């Protein structure tokens, strides 16, 4: 039975909800509404009113090859970083759940990266991955010029993917570990008695039982990879080289605040929002069907 608090009078209930409603309105609905308004108008860079232009902003963005390049880069980034962050976290959590040596250490240490601000960790990775002096400079010594995120778009993309995944491995790990630990020990033992080995048990018993968590993390990771990537891109690559890492969220910032195209940036925000909504709906429609909720 769920416990519910009930209030005698309708007004008291509303009064309790008002602070939260105010916050949501001020920081979500109002800016979102403004963005929709801006995206349908043309704003003067130095003020002086808006001119209604209908869908012209969207037309010009969607006919721009740079923008399509940005969407592609974002999708590539989202797919690879989500996959990497979830896979590594899943493996670590599975090992930790088996109480292998060092599992106590992982458990504490792995949540830390999530607590680090994206720009700070980006700066650290910038040093680590620096082609001339970082850890990877060893490779350049052996094969000169093979690694240079400043010149090679693929290297740059790899750098931001690694930095972002590193941050989310810890977050995912905590959820995966909790999910593994929620599986009754006796289920694993029953499977062992049924003749199932470690790997088989993982695929037949543990994996199906943590699908709700996998699904939750998939939605969160993909959404965050579109949004939380800004700080990493800004510090590590600034969208370069040659727009190779100009993710949608970074392009909104650079077009809006550096290019002073507020209206175009607003239209891009709307497109990004719609894209995330569509992706989430897609995940709920097609992936959730394969999830076993207990």
């Amino acid at each position, binding site marked *: 039975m769920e416990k519910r608090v009930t209030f005698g009078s309708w007004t008291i209930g509303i009064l309790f909800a008002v602070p939260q409603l105010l916050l949501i309105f001020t920081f979500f609905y109002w800016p979102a509404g403004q963005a929709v308004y801006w995206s349908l108008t043309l704003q003067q860079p130095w003020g002086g009113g808006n001119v209604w232009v209908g869908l012209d902003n969207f037309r010009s963005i969607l006919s721009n090859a740079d923008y399509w390049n940005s969407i592609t880069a974002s999708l590539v980034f989202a797919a690879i970083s989500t996959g990497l962050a979830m896979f590594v976290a899943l493996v670590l959590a599975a090992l930790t759940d088996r109480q292998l040596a060092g599992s106590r250490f992982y458990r504490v240490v792995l949540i830390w990266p999530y607590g680090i601000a994206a720009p700070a960790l980006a700066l650290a990775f910038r040093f680590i991955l620096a082609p001339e002096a970082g850890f990877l400079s060893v490779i350049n010594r052996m094969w000169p010029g093979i690694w240079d995120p400043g010149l090679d778009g693929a290297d740059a993309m790899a750098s931001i993917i690694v930095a972002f995944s590193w941050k989310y491995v810890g977050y995912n790990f905590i959820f995966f570990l909790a999910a593994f630990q929620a599986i009754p020990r006796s289920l694993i033992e029953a499977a062992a008695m*049924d*003749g199932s080995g470690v790997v088989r048990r993982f695929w037949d018993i543990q994996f*199906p039982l943590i699908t709700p968590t996998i699904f939750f993390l998939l939605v969160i990771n993909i959404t965050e990879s579109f949004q939380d990537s800004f700080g990493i891109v800004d510090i590590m690559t600034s969208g370069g080289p040659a727009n190779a890492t100009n993710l949608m969220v970074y392009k909104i910032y650079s077009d809006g605040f550096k290019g002073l195209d507020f209206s175009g940036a607003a239209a891009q925000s709307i497109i990004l929002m719609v894209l995330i909504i569509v992706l989430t709906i897609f995940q709920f429609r097609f992936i959730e069907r394969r999830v*076993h909720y207990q």
Partner: protein
Amino acid sequence: MASITIRDVKKSYAKLQIVHGVDLDIASGEFVVILGPSGCGKSTLLRMIAGLEEISGGEIAIDGTVVNKLEPRERGCAMVFQNYALYPHMSVAQNIGYSLKVAGVPAAERQLRVQAVARTLELEHLLDRKPMALSGGQRQRVAMGRAMIREPKVFLFDEPLSNLDAKLRVQMRSEIRKLHRRLNATSVFVTHDQVEAMTLADRLVVMNGGRVEQVGTPAQIYSRPASRFVATFVGAPAMNILEGTVDLDGLSLLGGSRRLAMARAGLPVGTKVAMGIRPEAVRLVAPGTAGALDATVDLVEELGAGRVIYVDLDGASFSVMTSEAVHPEPGSAVGLKISPEDMHFFSSDTGTRLEVFKASVPEPAL
């Protein structure tokens, strides 16, 4: 079909020793019940046989093969867990057939064998359901089916009935018994419920504090308990114990307020003993009857078929079970008549059974 040999098996976690050197031989096809209070190490022993728990010392052999280092799947045991441990994401048929699937049995044969097991356990109409949609008794049967389908050498039961309600428990108990009679597989059944233990066991192993207290048939355990622990643990209501001291020609009980005259056959005067009498071995007589102990009624518990009468014997609580139609009022006086052959004696120090007493005087004199 397989015998199990357990030799000096020990289990400890870090510094804490749970099982202190258990020796046990289980014959092929035998139904052995391990009975004991919670924390006595009975489940740990079972899990060591299954291979779910590492053996800290000693040796376990199944069918003559030492299995200490073998994985659970290599031991040929099947286990029924207390919480059933059904795979929640699989249907009943998949649950029962999982071990065959792992073993690589072709789907067609698998289906036939699942059907056969389901027929035996009357689960045929439930094969497509998920465990969540089953009742407690049905889940229990699925767990049994999952163990049966592998045709294991040994069945292990870890308190499988303790999550069921009383009525279902009695029913499942007789089903397990019938099943064992048909399959005749070696079975080890762990429980803390003595009624379950008495009714199921060919042979009963009573454990306490990580040690085996007594091994024997249920009748032997009941009639000749090897220790004070076994005496008070088996039987309901529990056996009455009266502390006493050996004197020149008998026993002085309850700090000297009551006496029993009997030959003391070898025990030195002053030895402290505990005398046990089962509540159902005591006869109620009129107060003041010669050779009976007088007591005051405290409380009467009506059981329908009989009643338990709690009496006060010079400050010590004492229970009597009778099926006679007597209903003494609380506060009234009754006489308790005890035959010498129903008395059990245990050492006060070690708790072990003493066989030295011969009741030479048929009636305890007051």
